[in-house]
């Protein structure tokens, strides 16, 4: 019998790669469990969640790929905060830890992080962490209107939330007393705890199967191999420092996001010195969330195929001066921190486009244009004498994305978030709202060699004639998504009623029952000079009704295209 020598020929390496692969599958199962059991729309529909496995030192070894990058390394950092508060030595099997601290978790009170230690043969071998956006957390609800974090709802500092798998009844009672949909919120916390348990179970069976006593060697390998691969990807970039400034709408005054990106040997540093100061509204961003979206932006261009873990994440370092809107300390209002956070990949692209012009897209709408409408109605079948019921309709929608270096931008598509919308038929079933229009918005994508993605037009009214309220969190209304390398800017967005009344793009407004609201979504920026547009592509845009503007003329015959 011939046995392959374990030490020669790479069998050990192969075995480690297989275990690594399995570890990624384990966290994917963990995340799948969470999606299935979650209540909040953003977790279920939008994949606004994350799941990961950590070694006993708190280094992240694997993270699930989910719908939104806001947790990319905020959750990784979060576990270190937990270990600081509760050292591993004091943890017991069945312990459950929890927080929604925006600064030690993932950026706002809606996100609850749950951490569970895994024990094997009496020894803590790993930690599982997960986070998701719960249905409600009390306070002002999902709007820009909070002035400080105290307005935004219940704050749960890092704590031991359960022993022997049982939740602390006092904390549960406090949560129930402070949120609007207590059954669903507690249900969401159950789903978080359950998904960590699934992860733990799978990890232990993997360790049994491969005869592993601990994750030390495997973890070291994962982190080293990923860091090395990221460093190699960084080495392909030219070294140097680049600056960019992007002006966005903000609340009462425009906000400048000032970015300095430095590529050095084996590392990328992104710094936001010069960025506007924090504001007394819910659009401020805690540092952890800034780091997450900034890293995501870099990773879209550099090493996108390398798995996320402490090794690959360590190569991108992010900093911002305290007090600027991207590093707003407690007790700043951070409720809808995604409004600014989702702009950060564009900020990073502004620098990288100077370093590697052929790899970086134009700016896009970037921040989500969610439709959040509330009011009262009489549902079908309800007795006319019954009191009107409250409805809440929350649907994720997106404008146009930026043109890519070698193709048009995606129209009405989420980026950098990856969320799904809700079907019109479902929205109309659970509310009295009628979507009279939901169509692409022609001419909104910036022209260029490659055209920016188009926004969309949504026209909505209450068929029962009652007033309804919308909570707007919209960007790119004043300052457009800019084109790249000569491409034109995307069109800005707007909101108005059918009598011509303008509606504000941030904050709560009432739409009178006899009016239709039109939401006109921004388009993405174009890439390259419009004169270089392929005439066939322009012809096709005209045929499909995507381009109707006269000035987007076809270049003269014989003009060079590239």
């Amino acid at each position: 019998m011939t046995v392959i020598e374990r030490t020669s020929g790479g069998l050990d390496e192969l075995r480690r790669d297989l275990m690594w692969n399995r570890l990624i599958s384990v966290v994917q199962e963990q995340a799948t469990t969470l999606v299935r059991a979650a209540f909040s729309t953003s977790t279920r529909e939008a994949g606004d969640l994350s799941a990961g496995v950590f070694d006993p030192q708190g280094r992240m070894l694997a993270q699930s790929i989910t719908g939104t990058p806001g947790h990319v390394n905020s959750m990784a950092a979060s576990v270190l905060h937990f270990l600081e508060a509760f050292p591993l030595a004091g943890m017991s099997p069945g312990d459950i830890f929890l927080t929604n601290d925006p600064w030690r978790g993932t950026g706002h009170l809606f996100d609850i992080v749950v951490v569970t230690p895994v024990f094997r043969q009496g020894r803590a071998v790993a930690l599982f962490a997960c986070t998701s956006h719960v249905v409600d957390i009390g306070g002002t609800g999902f709007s820009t209107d909070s002035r400080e974090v105290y307005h935004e709802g219940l704050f749960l500092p890092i704590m031991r939330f359960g022993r022997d798998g049982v939740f602390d009844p006092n904390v549960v009672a406090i949560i129930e007393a402070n949120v609007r949909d207590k059954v669903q919120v507690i249900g969401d916390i159950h789903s978080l705890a359950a998904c960590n348990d699934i992860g733990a179970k799978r990890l232990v069976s993997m360790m049994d199967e491969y005869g592993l006593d601990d994750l030390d060697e495997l973890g070291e390998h994962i982190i080293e191999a990923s860091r090395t691969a990221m460093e190699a990807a960084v080495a392909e970039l030219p070294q140097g420092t680049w600056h960019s400034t992007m002006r966005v709408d903000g609340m009462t005054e425009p906000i400048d996001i000032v970015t300095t990106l430095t590529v050095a040997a084996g590392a990328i540093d992104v710094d936001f010195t010069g960025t506007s100061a924090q504001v007394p509204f819910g659009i401020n961003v805690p540092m952890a969330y800034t780091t997450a979206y900034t890293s995501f932006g870099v990773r879209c261009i550099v090493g996108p195929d390398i798995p996320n873990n402490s090794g690959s994440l360590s190569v991108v370092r992010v900093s911002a001066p305290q007090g600027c809107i991207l590093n707003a300390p407690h007790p700043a209002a951070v409720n809808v921190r995604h409004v600014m956070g989702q702009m950060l990949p564009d900020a990073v692209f502004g620098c990288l486009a100077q370093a590697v012009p052929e790899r970086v897209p134009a700016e896009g709408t970037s921040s989500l244009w969610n439709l959040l409408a509330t009011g009262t109605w009489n549902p079908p079948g309800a007795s006319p004498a019954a009191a009107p019921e409250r409805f809440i309709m929350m649907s994720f929608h997106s404008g146009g994305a930026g043109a890519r270096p070698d193709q048009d931008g995606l129209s009405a598509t989420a980026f950098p978030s990856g969320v799904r919308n809700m079907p019109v038929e479902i929205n109309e079933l659970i509310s009295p709202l009628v979507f009279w229009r939901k169509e692409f918005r022609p001419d909104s994508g910036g022209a260029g060699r490659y055209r920016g993605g188009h926004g969309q037009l949504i026209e909505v009214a209450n068929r029962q004639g009652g007033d309804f309220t919308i909570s707007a969190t919209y960007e790119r209304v004043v300052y457009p998504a800019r084109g790249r390398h000569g491409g034109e800017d995307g069109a800005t967005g707007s909101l108005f009623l059918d009598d011509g009344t303008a509606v504000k793009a941030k904050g709560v407004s009432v739409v009178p029952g006899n009016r239709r609201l039109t939401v006109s979504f921004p388009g993405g920026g174009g890439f390259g000079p419009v004169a270089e547009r392929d005439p066939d592509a322009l012809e096709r845009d005209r045929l499909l009704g995507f381009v109707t503007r006269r000035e987007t003329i076809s270049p003269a015959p014989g003009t060079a295209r590239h």
Partner: protein
Amino acid sequence: MNDVRLAADIGGTFTDIALQVGSTLHTAKVLTTQREPAAAVLDGTAKVLAGAGLCGADVTVFVHGTTLATNALIERRGADTALLTTAGLRDAVEMAHEDRFAQYDLAMTRPDPLVPRHRRVGIPERLAADGTVLLALDEHAVRQAALELRDLGVQSIAIGFLHSYRFDAHERRARELVAEVWPEVPITLSSEVCPEIREYERFSTACANAYIQPLMQRYLLDLEGRRRGLGMTCPMYLMQSGGGLGTLAEAVRHPVRLIESGPAGGALLAAEIARDLGVAMALSFDMGGTTAKLCIVEHGEPHTSREFEVGRQYRFLPGSGLPLRLPVIDMVEIGAGGSSVAGRDALGRIAVGPRSAGSEPGPAAYGRGGTEPTVTDADLLLGRILPERFAGGELPLDLDAAATALRRAIAEPGGLTLEVAAVGVSEVVDENMANAGRVHGIERGCDVSGSTLIAFGGAAPLHAARVATKLGIDHIVIPSGAGVGSAIGFLRAPAAHESVRTWHRRIEDLRGDELGSLLRAMVAEATEVVQGAAPGEPTTASARAFMRYRGQGHEITVALPLEDLIAPEGVRPDDQAIRNTLASRFLHAYRDMYTREIPGLGVEALTWLLTVRTVLTPQPWVGTAPALQPPARRAFAEVLDPGTGAVVPHLVVERSVLGPQPLDGPALVIEDQTTTVVPEGFTVRRGPGGHLLLSRVTLTPGGFP
């Protein structure tokens, strides 16, 4: 006169024919004739009939399944199609979910819509979700659109209006109006092909049906004419995506229901075996040249679903294909097959698939110009495939070519020996399949460890033991006729029809008489379709609903006791009892899925499903009789076992001589279409029906030394 049952399965590469005469099976594999697919069916049929000494007139049942519908969609070979839809919403089919299915991939693309924007015409009309007419149908606009589309050269029309899943009057009227001015054009109504809420999926299904309808009609009528020319007078049944048989007329009207009918046949075969063996939970594992398909079979029934995505063109990623809502066997498909190409990822690790070398050029070992290593090449180097016996000896394999390919792409760049490279490719693909199976189980609320693996398709028996080990599965079945498993499955399919209606009700407000008349109408509709396919045969009906807690965005499928929901004629139903039944069924299903329930939340139902199917009579298993003697030791082959890292002599046994006594691994059980690897620690025997039964004897950790 014997029952003579004929099945034909047109696949991408091969057309499989199975003819069952009493308890004897005759099979043929002929190359698919892409331009004229009926030719291969007729050719193969003539072959098997001649082999059995029968003629066309002797055939009593003809069942046909085909990938043509799938391929026409993927390859975009359908008709120039138009969509008449609610004004203001014509972009629904292109806007999709507004999401991205590849988070880090800036170059991500979506498939082009089947109906381009300039052929999507908004018609002024509007219904509210409760059926209120907010805007009457503009009849003039419909006629006008039809005439304009005709002048544009459109060949097929889909009509999809908002809320038509429940209120179809505008769609039906629009069809009349189009037919008035343009009687010849085929028309698909979204309310007929998919009366289900969620406009993107429903319109997309209607467009897909309209798109392939002219082509499928031509093909089906051509085949019908030709097989009648062969003297075959029995009716032709079409295998449908959901695992039931339908009539020719139904297939011509709704060809989109023929999508994925081949793989459905395989799952039916697995289901029947699971029933025969009395296995509570089985995992059907079908691994061919390009992909592997896994399906959970619970209590002898394959899981079904109404969600399917055709043509995940972008790296097989979920979300990258065209969504269809129709009854389907619920399978997870991943890019892992014999021809899947192995390479190295960004970190230098071995990666396999989803790209496939197909049959041309195929694996390097085929000697047809392929230079990239594939799973088959690795299998060959590991000693699992005896080159001289591959495909019955008709396709000799080139070991050197396989070694060269693997060395160049995997071994040398990674500093691995050739053997370790081969182990690596095999282990990575097995891990991928095992991980897909585990995650699929989690998504469906099942733990697949402890189930029985039923493995068929050319490559599955080579990998089954290793995949089973990784999944914590101790028992494996390799069906007889594993190579033409889908066609055999066709012969075991019931005639069936699934009727669907979206009718949104909170359970606490639901009225028993309304539900009763809805379900009665659905039973009548489905029974009529099934009786058309199987006149006079006994049928059963079953009901399910898509239900959820109020406030949730996704429904779960809940099986319902039909008899408790329909009161006998003239009897006033007990509303409270019916509500209690629905609520308790929902809570039970919810607990099964999520291990807990949420007290205090209301329950609602969105969509109701009703299936009528014929009662199956057990079919004899076919094949040669078991050998009486213990197997003779024919020879040994040197096979590398990734489980132990050792090269071990494996006993080589012909499947036909294997008996009912367990034989200890390591062994290779060979037959013409495939080879079953029985590693050390497993036994193999021939069970009832000629299936191979593998069992794990030693529950050793399945890792490396």
